[in-house]
């Protein structure tokens, strides 16, 4: 059997009556970047915790490198959690040295990458967010993992810093690591070889961004007064979004939008949906998006 970095077979996890992950199949192959998209409460973080062996499935099966999750398998994983998992009161070098020691790596794994050298003497808590993220990446990659798991790795950084973090991810994949990454930023879907969209615990779509968007279309309104058109569409209960002076209405055909506008001067046309708009359709049609507390 080929040794895939991560596999989930119909994996389910319930907390009481709440099913956080519901019969999800997932596969991360070597050298592949898989993007996991979903609203809060869709089950992404629970699925990651299952894959890391931090939670046991209620049903189904997880395999890491062809085996059930174990300490041994976990040594081959690099993980960057949402909170980055760095010690705020240690410098990047101290964080790296500590992590290298935990993973049983030699001092070469604790070598500070060039972009972090100017911050040698600063504790992590005092570094800019983009630099903290670079440090977390360096730590996760230091033991040359075969599976890299990144939970919202680029949140809050500028576009150039974001491009550089993706460069690091792509380099790890090119070196043969499988990568599983969650993001809330649909533009980053273009960095992934494959996407899996989760909603209400289920995997509701998979494929490339283009495959998932397919031929979904939305209505576009160009009105003399966008504010007036916005008010009319809102009063009709339609899901309207503002893009500059243009309004976009997903899931509603142009003639229905035209009717809702009444006598307001406006042109209504149809346009291909973006991945984000397709994502909303999938998420909203699957019901609730927030987990109960």
């Amino acid at each position, binding site marked *: 059997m080929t040794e895939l970095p991560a596999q989930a077979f119909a994996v389910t996890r319930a907390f009481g009556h709440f099913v956080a992950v519901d019969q999800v199949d997932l596969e991360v192959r070597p050298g592949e970047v898989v993007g996991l998209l979903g609203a809060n409460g869709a089950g992404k973080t629970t699925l990651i915790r299952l894959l890391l062996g931090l939670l046991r499935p209620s049903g189904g099966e997880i395999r890491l490198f062809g085996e059930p999750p174990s300490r041994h398998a976990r040594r081959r994983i690099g993980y960057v959690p949402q909170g980055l998992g760095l010690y705020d009161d240690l410098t990047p070098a101290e964080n790296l040295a500590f992590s290298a020691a935990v993973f049983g790596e030699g001092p070469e794994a604790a070598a500070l990458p060039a972009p972090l050298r100017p911050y040698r003497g600063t504790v992590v808590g005092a570094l800019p967010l983009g630099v903290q993220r670079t440090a977390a990446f360096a730590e996760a990659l230091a033991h040359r993992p075969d599976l890299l798991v990144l939970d919202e790795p680029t949140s809050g950084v500028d576009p150039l810093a974001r491009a550089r973090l993706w460069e690091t991810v*792509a380099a790890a994949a090119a070196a043969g690591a499988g990568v599983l990454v969650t993001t809330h930023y649909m533009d980053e879907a273009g*960095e992934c070889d494959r996407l899996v969209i989760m909603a209400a615990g289920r995997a509701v779509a998979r494929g490339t961004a283009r495959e998932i968007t397919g031929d979904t279309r939305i209505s576009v309104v160009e009105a003399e007064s966008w504010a007036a058109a916005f008010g009319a569409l809102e009063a009709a209960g339609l899901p309207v979004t503002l893009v500059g002076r243009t309004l976009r209405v997903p899931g509603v055909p142009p003639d229905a939008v035209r009717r809702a506008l009444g006598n307001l001067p406006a042109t209504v046309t149809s346009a291909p949906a973006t991945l984000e708009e397709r994502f909303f359709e999938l998420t909203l049609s699957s019901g609730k998006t927030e987990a109960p507390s």
Partner: protein
Amino acid sequence: MTAPGAAGSAGGWWGTEDVCVRFGGTLALDHVWFRAEPGRVSAVVGGDGAGRTTLLRCLAGALAPASGRVRRPAPLATGYMSAGSGVYPDLSVNENLAFRATAYRVPPQQAHERTGELLARAGLDRVGDRLAGQLSGGMRQKLGVIAAMIHRPDLLVLDEPTTGVDPVSRSDLWWLIARAAAGGTAVVLATSYLDEAERAHDVLVLDAGTVLGSGTAEQIVAAMPGSLTVTGERPAGEAGRRAWRREGRWRVWDPAGGDPAGVIVPDLQDAVTVAILARELSLVPAGGEPR
């Protein structure tokens, strides 16, 4: 100098004129001109330390500039949400809103009417008794925005309302923002998402306290110096320093705008990346390490 109410009802604008802010020896804002107009959404973009929060705090009246002038409405006609939502974690959703309504002198009945619909649309109507500290990040941000607009301010200042928020909550937040602008409010928001900036009417690009660009997204793109090409591999040598990864390929910036073959039409994300890159390259000599 700060001049509350300076723009008055003359159909004017809010913003900054030649504003400088210093923190110790650091120039956090360096002669910043910025204009936010009623009924329009302005996005302030930039990375860490760009000065976005400092600019927003000036607009909100929370910080006085060292020099220059801030044009802002009277405090009761300004709405401000600080980064991290600014809600009281130990108060419930309803208590947070009641407190804000009192602070902004909105009569309770009026506040109730205004927020009822916004809460329902933002999916917060069934969590009115929940402590704000127990809300998800997206819900807390939505509460923060509703609290900041409860008094229908002339100027609504939102510091990173959507950072780290999931796409569904982000869409709800944008609905709230559009709703405020549709009602005539000038909305200023800081964001690190360029697709959001592209949706705004006006964009201000800040880096290290300096304005790198301002205008509509189209104007900022049109003002991008040089040209961009796309390649499958990072170019070798000096050109590699002017390249960055996007959507699995490499964008290469040519400041001289040379060979027209293979040149692509940039978008706002490209133009902002070029602006940050150009500044970085001017600070780092070839072969050197970053400051």
